[in-house]
């Protein structure tokens, strides 16, 4: 079996994988990082979003082997010294979740959104989260959370 090496949440990791192993399977099954979720098999729900070299990507639609040498950040890698990332804190503050299944992907997409649009209006936020589906919240509080986080992140 081929070997793949990458940096995940700042740590160098390396493992043998079948070529068909998706990045999300590598994260969940080999590294036990189960915060990254799988909500569909059609690449549409965004529950699996992680950052690859700083950009948000659906981890269910990229092979582990395609990411040889990459820097990957998952939801587990956001908190620093026990302090939540401002986006996580804003989701908590505004109750931007109900069941929480979509939340890791939402948070990862939202961070990428604020990086590219430091001061997003409501329309920009809704368009930026086009690739993330939430079955519970109706999105209102998610949009509020992203707006607050953008302000707190210095936008």
């Amino acid at each position, binding site marked *: 079996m*081929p070997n793949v090496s990458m940096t995940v949440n700042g740590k160098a990791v390396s493992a043998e994988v*079948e*070529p*068909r192993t*998706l990045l999300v399977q590598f994260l969940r099954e080999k590294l036990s990082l189960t915060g990254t979720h799988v909500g569909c*098999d*059609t*690449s*549409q729900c*965004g529950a699996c*979003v992680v950052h690859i070299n700083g*950009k*948000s*990507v*659906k981890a*269910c*639609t*990229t*092979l582990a*082997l*395609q990411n*040889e040498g990459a820097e990957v950040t998952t939801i587990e890698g956001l908190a620093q010294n026990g302090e939540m990332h401002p986006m996580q804190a804003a989701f908590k503050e505004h109750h931007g979740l109900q069941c929480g299944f979509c939340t890791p992907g939402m948070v990862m*997409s939202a961070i*990428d*959104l604020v990086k590219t649009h430091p001061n997003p209006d409501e329309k920009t936020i809704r368009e*930026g989260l*086009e*690739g*993330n589906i939430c079955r519970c919240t109706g999105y209102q509080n998610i949009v509020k959370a992203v707006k607050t986080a953008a302000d707190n992140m210095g936008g």
Partner: protein
Amino acid sequence: MYDFNYHRPGSVDEAVGLINEDAKLLAGGQSLLPTMKLRLAQPSDVIDLGGIPGLSDISVDGSTVTIGATATHASVAASSAVAGAIPALADLASGIGDTQVRNVGTIGGSVANADPAADYPAAVLGLGATVHTNSRTIAADDFFTGIFETALAENEILTKVSFPVPEAAAYVKFANPASRYAIVGVFVAKTSDGVRVAVTGAGGSVFRASGMEAALNANFSASALDGIAVASDDLNNDLHASAEYRAHLVSVMAKRAVQAAGG
């Protein structure tokens, strides 16, 4: 997903050498991997184009925008050079799917895949672009040959697409609200050789609306399209829209595109 052998060639020539009857090229994977996950495709070998240096370059000289096969939708959307030369092209790229699809999906994958509802084919045909491969160049008018079918041979790799800069152009789509694929999308370009109107989403493959082109060559304004419609006979009829509704949408989107292009 069925298992396969994975290859990551360092050059186009090396990639061509790896192709066999059951192999598949992998670019962004945003169309191929979902198909493989559903076991609708079962390649023996997957040849990843992601490690080939220079294949994603974007360049603009006075009259031509050239985009490398593995340039992502996000990089085309964010390119100020593309936006300066052909704003309609950058705009089209920014409306594909969602942020995460745009961050990895590529122009080469989209054009080679020739999904009947994809956006890029409308720009390729609407602008009269040239498709470059490892062995030849193909004019847009000869490239798209049917549903998911193109003039590419099995052992041919699309390397770049060059778009002539038009006088004015715009792309307007009626998007599927879930996927953002075009239920109907119309690309209108005013070029020195006349007006071109390319329609995606409506039929089995992107096509030119010649009746609309003739009307717009006489008078480049939305009102020139009053009463002109494409025939619904060969249009797609599915759960998203009936053929008659698609024919209606083609006229509406075409008028909006002409207006957006300043007509």
